């Protein structure tokens, strides 16, 4: 119920157009009606015509000798006039009949403003009498002895009573409304369909997709909006691209001084004999390694986040993992960690080889780094119907459930973790996985450490 109300209260464009249309229609109709009625009121057709006058002349002349009967007939005639006018018996709202013969009043409708005397014959005149305004017209009979005057009220406020008596003018509008509303609603809905298409495309796209909208509407209004969105997207794309290039350039420029620092300290090491001095130099070398790794990771991340501009091709995942594990094995050997790889046949995934390499490197490096000395890192590739799964598990401390989402953020590190790291490894993994339409999930391994699972979609034409 509450939902229904909320829905009803939320403004919609369809309703706005409908309401605007209805309001305009009503306004125009009312203006037209007002004009027609106003014109009619100012010069009522009954006053402008001559048939009513002729009827009264004939009546007066043929009944000249019978004044009593004449008055009765004129009274009945006046009642008929008033009924036809629609204003009731009140002279202030209705028409009145005044008949004079030889300038003497021989009949007037009940309550008629007898003070209304036209100065010119045959013309509708506005006359003030008894403190009110009246419209009156007087005609003379052919032998000029009978004058018939018809008087209608002319005060502005009378218009409303008049309007009220002419209610049948409004009825067509009321009858028309359903016939107008439904087609209007339907046509608006149909007109809005291309709009909804664009909305759907915008809402369905992933947050990091800054490519131009593919849906190019034929309609001019929509095309302008889509063009505007595309221009905006291009600007955002350009600025993120600039930012990425800047970071990559900065990282790149840092490589040479870092290399120089490292090589000089290493050369210095052979000249230094004291243990304390060696310890200090080792500290410099460790920091240098960290900085170097950070620079490399930054570059990798910037490359990983760049849009893939080459065509994705089938990559032999099993062979690639074997190669990377072989390359990483010195790092594992240094920490006396055993690397193990389990897989069946060659498995192919669709992707960009170099980016998959950095994904594999980072997952395995992380596992090796956080494993206890002498531990074991298991890498496994499983093929399922709809996906290829890469699992890397270690025997390290793992990541608490509540931090598992946040560790993918750049530079976020588990606060309990004392191992040094760039804080970019999992961000790189996530970026590469996303580009390959793959998901990354973290869970607890059999040995209580971390298990990283990456699900690659199975290539369609494999």
């Amino acid at each position, binding site marked *: 119920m509450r939902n229904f109300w909320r829905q009803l209260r939320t403004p919609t464009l369809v309703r706005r157009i409908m309401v605007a249309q209805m309001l305009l229609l009503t306004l125009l109709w009312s203006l037209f009606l007002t004009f027609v009625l106003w014109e009619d009121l100012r010069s009522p057709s009954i006053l402008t015509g001559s048939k009513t006058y002729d009827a009264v002349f004939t009546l007066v002349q043929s009944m000249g000798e019978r004044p009593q009967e004449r008055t009765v007939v004129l009274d009945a005639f006046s009642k008929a006039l008033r009924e036809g006018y629609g204003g009731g018996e009140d002279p202030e709202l209705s028409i009145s009949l005044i008949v004079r013969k030889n300038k003497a009043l021989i009949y007037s409708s009940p309550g008629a403003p007898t003070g209304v005397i036209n100065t010119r014959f045959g013309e509708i005149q506005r006359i003030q009498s008894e403190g009110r305004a009246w419209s009156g017209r007087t005609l003379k009979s052919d032998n000029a002895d009978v004058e018939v005057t018809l008087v209608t009220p002319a005060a502005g406020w009378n218009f409303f009573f008049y309007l009220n008596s002419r209610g049948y003018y409004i009825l067509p509008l009321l009858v028309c409304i359903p016939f107008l509303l439904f087609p209007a609603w339907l046509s608006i809905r149909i007109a809005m369909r291309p709009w909804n298409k664009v909305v759907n495309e915008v809402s369905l796209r992933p947050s990091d997709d800054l490519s131009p909208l593919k849906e190019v509407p034929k309609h001019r209004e929509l095309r302008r909006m889509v063009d505007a969105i595309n221009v905006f997207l291009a600007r955002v794309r350009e600025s993120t691209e600039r930012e990425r290039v800047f970071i990559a350039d900065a990282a*790149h*420029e840092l*490589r*040479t*001084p*870092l*290399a*120089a*620092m*490292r*090589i*000089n300290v*290493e*050369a210095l090491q*052979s000249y230094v004999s004291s243990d304390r001095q060696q310890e200090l130099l080792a500290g410099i070398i460790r920091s*240098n390694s960290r900085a*170097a790794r950070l*620079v*490399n990771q930054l*570059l990798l991340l910037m*490359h990983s986040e760049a849009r893939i501009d080459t065509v994705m091709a089938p990559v032999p995942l099993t*062979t690639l993992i*074997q*190669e990377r*594990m*072989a*390359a990483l*094995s*010195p790092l594992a*050997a240094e920490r*006396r960690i*055993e*690397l*193990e*790889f*389990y*897989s069946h046949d060659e498995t192919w995934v669709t992707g960009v*080889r*170099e980016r998959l*390499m950095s994904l594999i490197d980072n997952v395995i490096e992380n596992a090796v780094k956080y494993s206890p*000395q*002498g*531990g074991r890192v298991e*890498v496994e590739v499983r093929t399922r119907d709809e996906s290829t799964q890469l699992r890397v598990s270690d025997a390290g401390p793992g990541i608490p459930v509540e931090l598992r989402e946040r560790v993918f953020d750049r530079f976020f590190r588990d606060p309990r973790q004392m191992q040094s790291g760039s804080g970019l490894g999992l961000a790189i993994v996530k970026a590469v996985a996303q580009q390959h339409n793959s998901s990354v999930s973290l869970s607890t391994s059999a040995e209580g450490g971390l298990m990283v699972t990456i699900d690659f979609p199975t290539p369609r034409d494999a």
Partner: protein
Amino acid sequence: MKILLIEDDLDLGNGVRIALADQGFDVIWVRRKEDALHQIDACVPELVLLDLGLPDGDGMSLMTYMRQQLKGIPVIILTARGTLQDRLSGLDAGADDYLVKPFVLAELLARVRALARRSYGFKNEVIEIRGLTLHVPTRRVTVSERHIELTASEYALLEILMLRTDRVLTRRFLEERVFGAKENMSNALDVHMGNLRRKIGEGYVRTVRGVGYVIDTVPIQKGEG
């Protein structure tokens, strides 16, 4: 051994020069392409360390020049450009190795030594690891001075592993190198490796499960289990 170092960065160049000189190499250090061209002709180096980003020209063109002038002289590229494409184009241009900055001195020395060894050929080459020796020209293998008879495949496996110590060689790489790229050779590799191990004794070839094999110069004490 004469090494031509072409590196424009003052601190890095000087550091490498001193580090290599300390190791007994004869280093000529130049910082500009022009000087490099001059030195290539003047001193005829036996190994070149080349930085690709030089102030007066791209190092790649220098690479091409050297390939024409100094045939067979090994070149190691030192560069900050580290993507796969960069590596491949460097190696395509004729470089023998590719080191991405920042590198570790030990790594630089290892690559320099490996290339020096290769450029001198294996004429007098005896590789020795913890009592296991391999004399390349005669294909003679001894363990603790005791001669070992190996089949051709076993010898080929051992030679590849001993020429690339401390590097894990993948099963696929070994299969291709030793047996040629034929299908379903995985079992053959296991059989030959088993025989080789039985003959030379345990403790030399380490298995990286599911990945490949390696001979470590310094043995790794495994935490069993």
